[in-house]
């Protein structure tokens, strides 16, 4: 099962005020089942773009290459179908949904995904029980369930809310786009635990981060360096440490 997530020559562009702008320029990446990989790369290198394209955001036009997940053509699926298939994206900056009650949103999502996976829906009681267990674990207050989704949440609260969703939706592949930024030290540990406890031979993740510190907690199987819309280098966890000390220059030069 080496082709769990397999990306080949992926190219994508965005319409930037009328002129197309190429962002992903032939990206190759494979994440086997049960592995956790990290992506690091300079600001603007296309990390979030990659995660949006994988999750199916249609602002981006895929102009070449392919992405398969569990053997299926990922790019042909609607975002909700990808979610049902087990893909989860924790957004770098989660959007606010005014007026949409967080608990209701979570339950709707959980049941939509369960329905699509052929699992029984959770009734209100079972659902609340499941949520309460998770919020407690993530040290989130109940108040955040009653509020509108992400509205008025602090940066760290938004990130925790993303992790909460991940835990409830039980994905087989999670992309965490800088889920560590904006978190205090305790929260960082809690979030990392949240990911680690999902670790299993059936769970993979792609962790996008700028900081070695997260990778101390979530030790990746492989680290990829991304620049100019491509993976320019891949290696073991120690790459992250090199990067932390020396920056991207040597990799950029080597790739040039």
């Amino acid at each position: 099962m080496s082709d769990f997530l397999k990306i080949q020559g992926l190219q994508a562009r965005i319409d930037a005020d009328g002129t197309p702008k190429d962002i992903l320029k032939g990206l190759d990446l494979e994440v086997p089942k049960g592995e956790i990989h990290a992506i690091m790369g300079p600001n603007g290198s296309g990390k979030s773009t990659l995660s949006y394209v994988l999750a199916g955001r249609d602002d981006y036009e895929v102009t070449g290459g392919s992405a398969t997940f569990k053997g299926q053509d990922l790019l042909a699926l609607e975002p909700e179908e990808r979610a049902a298939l087990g893909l989860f994206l924790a957004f770098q900056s989660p959007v606010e949904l005014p007026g949409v009650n967080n608990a209701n949103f979570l339950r709707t999502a959980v049941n939509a995904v369960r329905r699509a996976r052929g699992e029984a829906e959770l009734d209100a009681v079972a659902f609340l029980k499941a949520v309460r267990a998770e919020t407690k674990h993530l040290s989130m207050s109940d108040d955040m369930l009653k509020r509108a989704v992400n509205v008025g949440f602090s940066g760290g609260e938004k990130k925790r809310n993303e992790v909460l969703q991940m835990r409830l939706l039980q994905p087989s592949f999670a992309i965490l786009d800088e889920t560590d930024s904006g978190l205090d030290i305790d929260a960082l540990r809690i979030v990392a635990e949240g990911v680690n406890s999902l670790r299993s031979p059936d769970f993979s993740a792609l962790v996008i981060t700028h900081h070695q510190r997260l990778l101390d907690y979530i030790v990746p199987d492989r680290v990829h360096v991304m620049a100019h819309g491509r993976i320019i280098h891949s290696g073991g966890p120690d790459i992250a440490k090199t990067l932390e000390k020396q920056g991207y220059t040597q990799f950029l030069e080597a790739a040039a």
Partner: protein
Amino acid sequence: MPAVTETRETVEKLAKSSYEWGFETDIEMDIAPKGLNEETVRLISERKGEPQWMLDWRLKAFRAWLEMEEPTWAHIHHPPIDYQDAHYFAQPKKKPGPKSLDEVDPELLKTYAKLGIPLHEQALLAGVEGAEERLPVAVDAVFDSVSVATTFRKTLAEAGVIFCPISDAIREHPELVQKYLGTVVPVADNFFAALNSAVFTDGSFVYIPEGVRCPMELSTYFRINARNTGQFERTLIIAEDRATVSYLEGCTAPQRDENQLHAAVVELVAMEDASIKYSTVQNWYPGDDEGRGGIYNFVTKRGICRGARSKISWTQVETGSAITWKYPSCVLAGEGSVGEFYSVAVTNNHQQADTGTKMIHLAPNTRSTIIAKTISAGHSDSTYRGLVRMQPKARNARNFTQCDSLLIGDQCGAHTVPYIESRNMTARVEHEATTSKISEDQLFYCRSRGLSEEDAVGLIVNGFCREVLKELPMEFAVEAQKLLQISLEGSVG
């Protein structure tokens, strides 16, 4: 509250197709010939066994109507209405009161079932004896403008509350009807109100005596059934000093190719410290995807806060009708009185809605709040039209207005037309309006969590309408949420 849950469940089950309520009921009807003239008015009055004063009142309205022109200022378009090409009186044939559900006209029962009224509630509606205790909501069912059943009359009567068809009230409580009818919406107030005054056939009458808090929600289901009939119901609600009442209005009509006219009038009177909450979920048949058929809904709703510190609150969720023309208003005549208007108007396909409110501040320290949410999809057009007027005596009066419009698709229109008039320097008016499209970011976020596009739209739209929906009584709120989603079906993708 089993009935609440059951009603909700029934509604949820029903809420599957685009217009689930578009069935036709085959019930024996007593129908007047088509056409509108003085004879029609006399015939209606005679069939209803009305006293002379009522006939005179109707005739006065009819003569005024003849002199009036249909208003043209609203942002709506429709072929001319032929007022002679409709029946103005249609009444289910009366049979002796049934003793059990088995004796009730099965067609009538089917109708109630389809309306989502739970079985024991149906029993009540059908007038089955001894079924009353189980229901927390008193219901008046109005079928082609004729009240066919009112539940809980006895229980309510014990509290001193009168809740009955207005035609009964005209006979049984003439002094009350005469005292208040037409005092809030005068017979010649506008073209459609004059028409209603001349030919209304039924509606609900509510009287809450001094100091009484109405022990349950009062509710009316309106249904247009007969073909080519205008529906003209008249509602009058009076809350005496310190009285409180919450009233719900729901409605449906069958799917038909031709348009049908609906011109209702609602009058509310709130005395000192009284409070009236009037909630509507309007779901008349909106016409098909191509804009064929549907109800023309021209409604005059107005309340007067006569007494000090009285309060009138309108909440409406407008999802149906081919055309909606309605402006539930408050005249704030009592010092410190409060007017509220919470509205959600959803239009899809070829629907047109021109709706809003008027807040007329006549007295000091009066307060009003307007929250209007407009959602347009398909080829529809929706307008918020509102007036806030601070008269010279309205010292320290306040108004806050928030109008938000959401457009779904690029073939629809959303418009905001507020009028703000102030003649008192100490009065304060604040108005805000926004128009935008449904956010792609929000849609994507929801879909990436597994929600289908339609569910995502439904969720976001419901969030957008939250401030209004939370004003609805629980049972209605659930129904309203479902309706919002159904109304927008097929508007995305």
